[in-house]
């Protein structure tokens, strides 16, 4: 593609294509490097009962609330979580270019972390605070490993997340939107009343909340 200044550049494509990747055959060294990187990017979900050497039995869960992103995690910290009613039962350990979480459960609000809490009065209610960024190649793994530890029958999942207002597509100006600006998406199996309007087209949700 020629720019206004006459230089020829490779045009970036919305389709997210990577020409170099296609053309090159993978050498054994490439394969080894790729495997090492994949291993480094693996996610570990550690539950507190596993530390005692117990077998991994599926967790009985009736309600699972997941807060993704710093804002949603802070919301739970401010209004829901306390050390009297909730106990930490698990942690996700991961690494990617944006953040690294550890297996410690003693975290500061400014850290990147992904912790699971259980309501002491009703141990089937689980809560997850995920303030770290889960990269797109790790999202499916996160899902399979977290939900894989749960018995999913009769499970109700609520996902809390935030998006920048600048991403919201609307005919009106975003300056006139009411605050707090809440929108929801729900599966058809969810029969309860939703506390706000549903997200209208052409808006979509991405990343871990979408996964």
């Amino acid at each position, binding site marked *: 593609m020629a720019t206004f200044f006459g230089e020829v550049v490779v045009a970036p*494509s919305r389709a997210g*294509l990577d020409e170099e990747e296609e053309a090159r055959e993978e050498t054994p060294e490439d394969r080894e490097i790729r495997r090492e990187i994949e291993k480094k990017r693996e996610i570990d979900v550690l539950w507190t009962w596993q530390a005692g050497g117990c077998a991994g039995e599926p967790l009985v869960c009736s309600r699972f609330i997941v807060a993704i992103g710093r804002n949603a995690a802070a919301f739970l910290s401010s209004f829901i979580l306390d050390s009297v009613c909730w106990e930490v039962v698990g942690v996700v350990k991961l690494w990617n270019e944006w953040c690294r979480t550890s297996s410690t459960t003693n975290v500061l609000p400014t850290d990147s972390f992904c912790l699971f809490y259980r309501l002491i009065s009703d141990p089937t209610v689980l809560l997850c605070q995920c303030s770290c960024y889960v990269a797109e190649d790790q999202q499916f793994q996160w899902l399979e490993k977290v939900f894989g530890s749960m018995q999913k029958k009769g499970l109700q999942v609520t996902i809390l997340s935030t998006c920048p207002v600048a991403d919201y597509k609307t005919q009106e100006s975003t300056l006139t939107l009411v605050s707090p600006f809440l929108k929801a998406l729900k599966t058809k199996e969810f029969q309860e009343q939703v506390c706000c309007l549903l997200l209208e087209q*052409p808006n979509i949700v991405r990343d871990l909340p979408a996964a």
Partner: protein
Amino acid sequence: MFIPCDRGGDSAGPDFKGFTLLMPAVSVGNVGQLAIDLVISTLDMTKVGYFYTDCLVPMVGNNPYATAEENSTELSINAEVYSLPSKKLVVLQIRSPFIKNKYRPFCETLLSWVKSSKCARVVLLSSSHAYQRDDEQLLGTPLRYLLTPDLEKAVGGRMKELNWKEMEKVAAYPGISDTDKVLHIPGGGITKLLFTESCSEGIQMAVLLKFCSEGDNIPDAFVLVNYLNEWLQLIKSEVSTSSNSTDPSSQWKIPSSWRLLFGNGLPPALF
């Protein structure tokens, strides 16, 4: 990979034996995907399932083909399958790009699903970078087709009748003569991989592509879907009485999700 929705009484899921599978390649300008949106929206196709895959970037939203309040609240994700049994047509729509290093596994799983569901043939809508055309390709139609050997036997004659142009092979090493000619589809995403794999696995596949650039690709989508319609006759092209030309563009229904494709309206506070 394929999960049927509404299992109901028919636990075996929908039957695609003998159907034509129409699908897009995620390619320059997303033209294939836009064209597929037009097909699904115009033919009012029913969703019959989705692909559960870790190969595509996750996304979710409400029904992109909603026409009224009642049908606007069905969730829609990144890879969904629609069907129209009356035309023996099954359509796959892909709504997000591939995750790095995952396009190969996706192609393998897709082709094995094509074989196991016994689809008669696959039609892949795609596009290629317009700026990579050579001098000859700059002239004439920007539309091209490709057929795997198995499909060539069945429909090659029809392409000649329609006066369609086959995608040219280019020299493997440009500038050096006497080199092998290879298929090169820059900006076509998985098009070349799917096509070459289909050739070697005996799958009947046709590729329909348009040369284009990134920008407002809605007109490109219309051109591509009309090209497809010349062959598959999915909708009737009305002959206009005033002129002899057929212009089916107005008969394709634009889905509601194409609103605000280039962002919001201008804030009044700007002025």
